[in-house]
């Protein structure tokens, strides 16, 4: 149950920063629904530095989704501290949390979550609309972001005119466009076939390698986790394993014995 000291990917990229992007200290989260009390996080401490590429694994109910909501500023801790990019967000108001999500976090979801019947460009622009950027500037940045994921010519397309892989790339562009401190991806390949999934993962890898983007990805597929540089495994609301992913790792070594038995 002991977490291995994390050798961060930042050292590989050589872009170490003194301030960690994510710093969770003794994080507890308790959900109450009537009489029932669920202790989803039981004292999690985690540090993610700039430029790291972390894969979060664990069975359902292990607390990994709760932690994603916490570090994504969608939810608040019951106790403990969360410092995001040097700013303590544990006591922030709802509005400040929204602003933090807007500027510091780029979300990528399993089901793409684009706004329907709205062009790819407008979707990518949306976070910058909420940030109050001038139309010309945000349009330019949205265009660049779409080009960086190879969809420059699909700017006017509506989500339902795009394939799953293309939609996920638009979502990635949306996450990138506001230049966040990190990208938070929740099962980003869960709805894609293997080939497209690999394409998307390659984009993530490139972003991490070339632009030093900090990426946290939640997955329960070992082959997806293999693209990352560090593995954090949750179990029963605690971090069970935290180690770098090495070149000699493969699907079998990443698969947890218990989870392997399930699948």
């Amino acid at each position, binding site marked *: 149950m002991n977490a291995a000291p994390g050798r961060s990917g930042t050292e590989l990229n050589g872009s170490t920063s003194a301030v960690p992007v994510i710093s969770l200290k003794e994080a507890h989260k308790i959900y109450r629904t009537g009489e029932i009390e669920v202790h989803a996080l039981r004292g999690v401490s985690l540090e993610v530095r700039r430029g790291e590429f972390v894969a979060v694994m664990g069975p359902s109910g292990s607390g990994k989704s709760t932690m994603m909501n916490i570090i994504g500023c*969608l939810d608040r801790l019951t106790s403990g501290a969360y410092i995001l990019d040097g700013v303590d967000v544990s006591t922030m108001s709802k*509005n400040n949390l*929204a602003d933090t*999500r807007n*500027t510091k976090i780029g979300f990528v*979801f399993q089901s793409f*979550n684009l706004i*329907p019947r709205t062009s790819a460009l407008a979707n990518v622009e949306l976070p910058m609309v*909420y940030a109050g950027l001038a139309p010309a500037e945000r349009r330019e940045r949205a265009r660049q972001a779409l080009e960086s994921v190879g969809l420059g010519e699909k700017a006017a397309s509506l989500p339902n005119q795009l394939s799953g892989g293309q939609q996920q790339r638009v979502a990635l562009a949306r996450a990138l466009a506001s230049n966040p401190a990190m990208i938070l991806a929740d099962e980003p390949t869960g709805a894609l076939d293997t080939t497209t999934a690999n394409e998307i993962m390659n984009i993530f890898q490139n972003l991490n390698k070339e632009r030093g983007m900090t990426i946290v990805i939640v997955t329960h597929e070992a082959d997806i986790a293999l693209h990352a540089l560090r593995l954090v495994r949750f179990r029963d609301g605690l971090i069970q394993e935290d180690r770098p992913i090495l070149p000699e790792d493969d699907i079998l070594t990443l698969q947890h014995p218990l989870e392997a038995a399930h699948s």
Partner: protein
Amino acid sequence: MRLLDIQKMAIHALGKNKIQTALTMLGIVIGVGAVIAMVSLGQGASKLVQEQVAGLGVNVLQIQGGGGNYQGGGGARQAADQGQSLTSDDVDAIRNLPTIALATPIAQAQGQFVFGNQNWQTRVEGSNEDYVEIRAYKIAQGEFFKADDVRTASRVVVLGKTVADTLFQGADPIGQTIRIRNLPYQVVGVLAAKGQSAQGQDQDDTALMPYTTVQKKMVNSALPRINRIVVSAVSAKATSAAKDQITGLLRERHGIRTGQQDDFRVNNITEAAETAENTARVMTYLLGSIAAVSLLVGGIGIMNIMLVSVTERTREIGIRMAIGSRGSYIRLQFLAESVILCMLGGLIGVAVGVGLSFGIAWYMEWPSYISPQAAGIAFLFSAVTGIFFGYYPAHKAASMDPIEALRYE
């Protein structure tokens, strides 16, 4: 976030589902249109009554001879206006009542007016010189006849617009001589046009003369006949008191005992007109309120659709919140949607209402009167409806939990 972006977002969202938007808007269109049409209709009716009142003259009462107890001979009763119970002494007595400002006898006749090769059959009203003031006639050309003309029964005539136009075909009638029953009459004045009365009668198809002239030259009767007396009370309030005083005075003068019926009839035209105007006003309020209910129903329709829309778009709201929209932006967006919906509906409603008002006015042959206040208030009310009925759905959207909203299928 910029205000303009909220507007754009709302318009974009409304444009995504055009049929739903149009149908929702229809409720407001009908509501606003109905309010404007109904209020305009009511005010048009009011205005019509007002015009008629103004056409009748100043605080006018009319006393008709005959009817009631008066027996025109052989025990046969006669309709009002046909009897000869009124005399010019009655007129003088009435004039001395404290509530009466002016009074004139009216002697009526018909005549064939001839000028050159033109001729025209019209009704002639004989009165004294005060009639022009009592009826608030305006003189377009020339002048009204004078007290001297009445005393000497001179053959002077003031023509209504229709008569003057027909006989003179645009030439100047003042000072010209026309012939009626082979007697020459001098045209001294022409009345300004009054248009049609409420009964569709051409009020300009008339001619005025001294009543003495009508009695002596136009009516072949041994008795100097007075058809009715028209009086002007000192004020609108005094008209009812004037009616009582005239009734008392004439009963006494005509020797009618208690229990016996009057041989005359006093009509308080001003009072009748006021009643009609009040009725029109009440109708305006009534129609307006019924229409306002339809606007309310439209508003509830908006709320219903907005609530459905918020539920339908739960996931979208979750996405927006996740990528950094504050709750207040979500609230503003939904509020903007309902307000834009209502204001657009309101604008179309104003157009529909104005069109409807003109249509109804044209069909009823009423003066078309569009109430700018009604249009303004109805439009404003539609905007308020948008805010009032849009707030709850918008608030519901804004207070969603992003995590749950994102999970919504």
